[in-house]
């Protein structure tokens, strides 16, 4: 069973549902914690950050009344999605994730090497996404309370690379432009184009580069402990070979270093499950959903995958004669 292939299929299906869903009368609501961009015409589902930012752009006293309840309801639905599907939103559903993964496949097909952050640098950058998440709350509040100009409205949508990129798949090029209305709008929408460019270029050097700084990941990581998905490690079976760290696109150290954490879905984890597939020891790593183990590290499966990775079954029968 090749989990990565299954994941790719699920990613494609999610992409079609989210971008083209309207054609099939699919509507998953507007509170999805993933980049299901609402700017995509006739989309199948909407990113909850849009509504979230608009709802926050109100004067503070309003939150004691109906506005507060609306906000809580929106958060509640997003939270429910986050608890049930947790990081799988990132690894299996997010369209930006799919685009980055496809570019990575192109890179490896071209045999271009990737580079890694140093451990110290990685640790330092982890906090960026939380700062961004905080700003996501503070800037709209600032706008709603007259502290920041209205040019900054929905700052994350203006900045988000999904906005210019995803509508292109429905033939809509209007978002792929810089808004010269004012300095803030220029900076933010310009930034979005820059981020799209970054996404393409960095995919030839790193895996899932944008995800390390994504405020959506930050939001979802708040639910790691209560999420229904979990990753367990049996330290006594671990040989500390380091395969899991090397396979992890988010360069998470804990997966290799920790020998007995209850749940290894750390803040950066996108649940791509590459670590479980890379593990050569039976049951050293296990992925669980609501306590039910659905994928275990398996020595036989590992051997089969290595056979495929080093040339496929055909090469096995070919013997080198001197």
């Amino acid at each position, binding site marked *: 069973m090749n989990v990565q292939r299954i994941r790719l299929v699920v990613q494609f299906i999610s992409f079609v549902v989210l971008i083209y869903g309207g054609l099939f009368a699919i509507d998953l609501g507007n509170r999805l914690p993933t980049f299901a961009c609402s700017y995509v015409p006739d989309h199948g589902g909407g990113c909850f950050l849009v509504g979230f930012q608009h709802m926050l752009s109100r004067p503070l006293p309003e939150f004691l009344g109906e506005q507060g309840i609306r906000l809580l309801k929106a958060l509640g639905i997003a939270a429910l999605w986050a608890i049930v599907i947790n990081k799988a939103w990132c690894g299996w559903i997010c369209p930006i994730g799919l685009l980055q993964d496809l570019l990575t496949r192109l890179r*490896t097909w071209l*045999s*271009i*090497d*990737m580079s890694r952050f*140093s*451990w*110290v640098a990685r640790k330092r950058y982890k906090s960026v996404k939380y700062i961004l998440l905080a700003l996501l709350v503070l800037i709209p509040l600032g706008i709603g309370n007259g502290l920041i100009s209205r040019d900054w409205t929905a700052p994350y949508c203006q900045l988000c690379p999904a906005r210019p990129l995803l509508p292109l798949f429905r033939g809509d090029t209007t978002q792929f432009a810089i808004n010269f209305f004012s300095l803030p709008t220029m900076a933010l929408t310009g930034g979005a184009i820059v981020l799209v460019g970054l996404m393409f270029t960095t995919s030839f050097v790193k895996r899932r580069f944008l995800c390390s700084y994504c405020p959506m990941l930050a939001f979802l990581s708040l639910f790691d402990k209560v999420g229904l998905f979990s990753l367990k490690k049996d330290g*006594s*079976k*671990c*040989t*500390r*070979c*380091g*395969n899991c760290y*090397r*396979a992890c696109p988010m360069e998470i150290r804990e997966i290799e270093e920790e020998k007995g954490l209850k749940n290894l879905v750390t803040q950066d984890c996108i649940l791509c499950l590459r670590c479980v597939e*890379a593990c*050569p020891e039976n049951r050293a790593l296990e992925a669980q959903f609501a306590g039910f183990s659905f994928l275990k590290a398996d*020595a036989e499966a*590992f*051997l089969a995958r*290595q*056979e495929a*990775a*080093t*040339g496929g079954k055909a*090469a*096995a029968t070919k*013997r*080198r004669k*001197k």
Partner: protein
Amino acid sequence: MMNEMPPEHMNPSGAEGGRKLSRQERLVNKVRLHLAMTVREIFEEVEKDELRPKAMAYFDDIFRKFMHNGEGVIKAAEDQKVIGTYCVFVPEEIVYAAGGYPVRLCAGAHDTSEIGEDFLPDVACPMVKSEMGFASMPILDFYQRCDMVALPASCHWKLKMGEMLEPFDDVHMLDVPRVKESEKARDYWLEEVKRFQKRVEKITGRKIRRKALRDAIRRIQRAQREVVRFQELRKHNPAPILGRDALEVLNAYFYDEVNDWTDALATLNDELEERIAQGIHVAPPRAARIMLTGSPMVFPNWKVPFVIEDLGGILVCDEFCTSQRYLSDMVSVDEGTMGDMLMAIAERYVLPCACPTFSNTIERRDRIARLVDEYQVEGVIYHVLKGCHPFDIELKIIEKLLQEKGVPMLKIETDYSPEDVEQLRTRIEAFQETLKGRN
């Protein structure tokens, strides 16, 4: 078969075709004679065993050649570069990818230990003494055939051996990090692997391409896969093959061409499967199941496995860098790019490695605990060579681990000389009697 001593060995002090032999030549002949005697003694003992699998003959042939200068032991082509390796840290995939032939030079002959004493103190590790003996004198031809020797600075003896080998070999030292947890240590080791790669490319004159490296990884993985199968068959109780035969099979990997070796092991595995199906076993079901660990044992230093199995025990598995550990843990290819494969190689040789020259003991402890469970080991014999500090230091830690698991352990301290076989026999016998509740 038994009277296989070539004529020149029978007359070590005689003149060769009229010319008088120099003292050096006499010494060489003497040592060759001793080695031939040692090897013959082993095979005389081995041949008494009627229940030996027929597929063992392939591996026997390799070691019988030790009686004749080691001619034909390695199968390198005339223009192929031979890279000698020591320890378990040298990335053989790189040697194969560059078209070279790796041969592991870790030695087990007492007869050359005495020559080694010209270079090293008497209390030095007998393995390093033996290696210096082979390197400085033409006893087994493949030592002199090496175009380059890769020597990891693992323990102190190996560290200093590098300089001592320089008059005889082109030595490339590999600086294995002792504290392997830190990022800098791993980056450093990756650089060491790349430095080794450059040296090998220079020696063989062939630059390593991605496909060649991938194929080299695949070749070794194929051998390792066959070993996984072999080890599974060894778990069977009652045992289809003696532990000392298994040691011979794994030891042959040092010298043989990897594809040939894998095919021979596959044949042996098939035969073992048949034996299990037919109920042929080499030890009674109640034989004491013993595991060996500690300082490595290399042919012809097999006195301990012989004693264990003569006394009716069965050696079911081992934790030796010269046998089971050498062929466990695969290089695991992730993306298949050059950088990925090099990193995979570097990591495989160091991260899961259970050698006691690293600062922590957790890999070794976990590995021994797992082996004890998987093979239903009843007793562990911990073998320490005189002068081998790393294994000696870990002794108490492993003893504690085994106590917690309720598995008795016997420590034996010895060297390569055959003089203490009886003392070993008494101790091992008492130990096995304890295991079987004869007390």
